[in-house]
């Protein structure tokens, strides 16, 4: 409970910071007033530029953290992370395909649905290839194959685009960024994040039971087939929708559950809640860093996440190795 309060206050604090940091320097009180009233140019900046960006950071981080924790609980494998095993990459491919063919413009949910479709396919493929009993090695190998293929196809589609800017945007789809996103993007992401998160969070008891092994879980009355379908659709909905507007951001689903696991006594149901909040906090922090370090260059979120996440992850691997010896 204390962890929950800490995480919630951290998210609220970072959300406020995210709203107050940008190119335009204005006194704190003026910014907050403008945020509420929406009056004047500062009101437009606060309500139309910074607020959607902060909300999207929240959604992207929450989705990635929650998906990571859920996949890790279900596969009982700490390496199952949407970015690492190619789900984000496949969602990028779906989004790019629908944007370049013009399908994304046909109706307002076309873009997230295309990304969702491609990520459902990837999650299924991963579960099929790695299986619930599969080793870390099979999971990683399957993930590498899927992300390599999705990445290559994304690059190909962007290279073939008639738009001269498209090729330069391969980086965006691989690394992710929240620069200059608007409420248009929030509205197409939000429904999928809410539905996806509700589906995944409902799996808490099932994932808790699964820690005892599949047979035991089944005797307690857990429907494994149903659990799998709910997980696949839930993860694909969240990752698909957030990747479609923010690109693929790596490491969040890997690092956050790793840090938080010990505080929730490795209980999947509690880890999912904690990782959702922790993911939101870390992406908000990374997006603030992006704007502070190189304000004019649209530094990609994935770069900051990898710089933050990779050493932390190496440290965690080193520590688990030392403990197991």
């Amino acid at each position, binding site marked *: 409970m204390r962890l929950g309060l800490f995480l919630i206050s951290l998210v609220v604090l970072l959300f406020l910071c995210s709203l107050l940091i*940008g*190119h*335009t320097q204005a006194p704190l009180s003026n910014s907050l007033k403008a945020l509420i009233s929406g009056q004047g*140019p*500062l009101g*437009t*900046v606060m309500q*139309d*530029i*910074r607020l959607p960006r902060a909300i999207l950071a929240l959604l992207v981080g929450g989705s990635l953290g929650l998906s990571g924790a859920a996949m890790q609980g279900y596969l009982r494998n700490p390496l199952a992370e949407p970015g690492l095993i190619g789900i984000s990459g496949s969602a990028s491919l779906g989004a790019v395909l629908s*944007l*370049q063919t*013009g399908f*994304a413009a046909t109706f307002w949910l076309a873009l997230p649905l295309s990304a969702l479709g491609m990520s459902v396919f990837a999650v299924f493929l991963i579960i099929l290839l790695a299986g619930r009993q599969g080793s870390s090695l099979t999971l990683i190998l399957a993930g590498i194959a899927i992300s390599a293929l999705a990445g290559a196809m994304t690059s190909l589609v962007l290279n073939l*685009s*008639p*738009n*001269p*800017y*498209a090729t*330069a*945007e391969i980086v*965006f789809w691989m690394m992710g960024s929240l620069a*200059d996103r*608007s*409420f*248009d993007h929030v509205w197409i992401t939000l429904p999928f994040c809410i539905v996806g998160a509700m589906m995944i969070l409902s799996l808490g008891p099932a994932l808790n039971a699964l820690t005892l092994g599949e047979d035991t879980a089944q005797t307690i009355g857990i429907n494994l087939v149903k659990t799998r379908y709910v997980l696949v659709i839930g993860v694909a909905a969240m990752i698909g929708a957030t990747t479609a507007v923010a690109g693929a951001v790596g490491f969040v689903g890997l690092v956050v559950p790793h840090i938080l696991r010990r505080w929730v006594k490795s209980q999947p149901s509690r880890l999912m809640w904690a990782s959702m909040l922790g993911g939101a906090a870390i992406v908000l922090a990374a997006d603030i860093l992006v704007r502070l370090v190189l*304000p*004019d260059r649209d530094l990609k979120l994935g770069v900051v996440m990898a710089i933050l996440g990779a050493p932390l992850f190496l440290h965690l691997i080193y520590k688990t190795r030392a403990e197991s010896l």
Partner: protein
Amino acid sequence: MLVFVQLFKQILVNVALLLWATLTYAAPQKIVSLNLCTDQLLMLLADPNQIASLSKIVDDPNVSFLAKKAAEFRKNRGDAEEIFMNSPDLVVAGVYTEKATVQILQSLGVRVEIFPIEQNFDDIVENIRKMGLLVGHSDRAKRMINDFNIRLEELRSGITERPRAAIYSANGYTTGTDTMSGQILKTAGFQNITEEVGMSFGGTLPLETLVMLQPDFVITGKAYPGHSRSEEILKHPALRPFKGITQTDAKWICGTPAVLDAVAELQHAHPEKGLR
């Protein structure tokens, strides 16, 4: 006596030959263009049968206002081998044309003329004069320059009020006064907001900064086909309250008399010139 007549005939023939040679030299008959802007100047000033080939990009109506007219000419891919085998007697190129190609062609003895980038309307006049001279139609160039100056004067007259405007394109790039687009905007009677933030050539203007500057008009570019995230910024809800004018298009890119059409289109939104 007969000897003198013979000699006189000989001299006459020689002089005629020389005259013919200088005349044909003065007006090249196989001209190849390697640059979008020289393509368009060439089409405006040379006779169609003088043009051997134009660059491929001139077919694209997004960047070339003479795309339709260009359809009747052959196109080149811009590599040295293809152009040399074509044996042109003149190659016209821009400063940004691939340096290696230009060097190879020159070392093979092909005459290459480089046209500088136009940054203001004087540069346009200079390039029109240069192209006219090269293709042997200085008279045409003179007429074009004359018309250009008359129309320019007419467009410039009677402007006292200068509304603030910004040219905003993909990736939040804004164009300053020391560029062709900046000159078009200035001539149409608008004040470029880059002057307030000290960007004479232009650069990336964050969306937040643009909104805070509150220009009277925002001029955006036309989106290319396909999709790019770079251009999504132009449809950002924060830009919707601003008045748009026309969109920058092919007429804005090269220094040709068409820039005055761009100026005239912009003036539809000008408080003093728009009503006419």
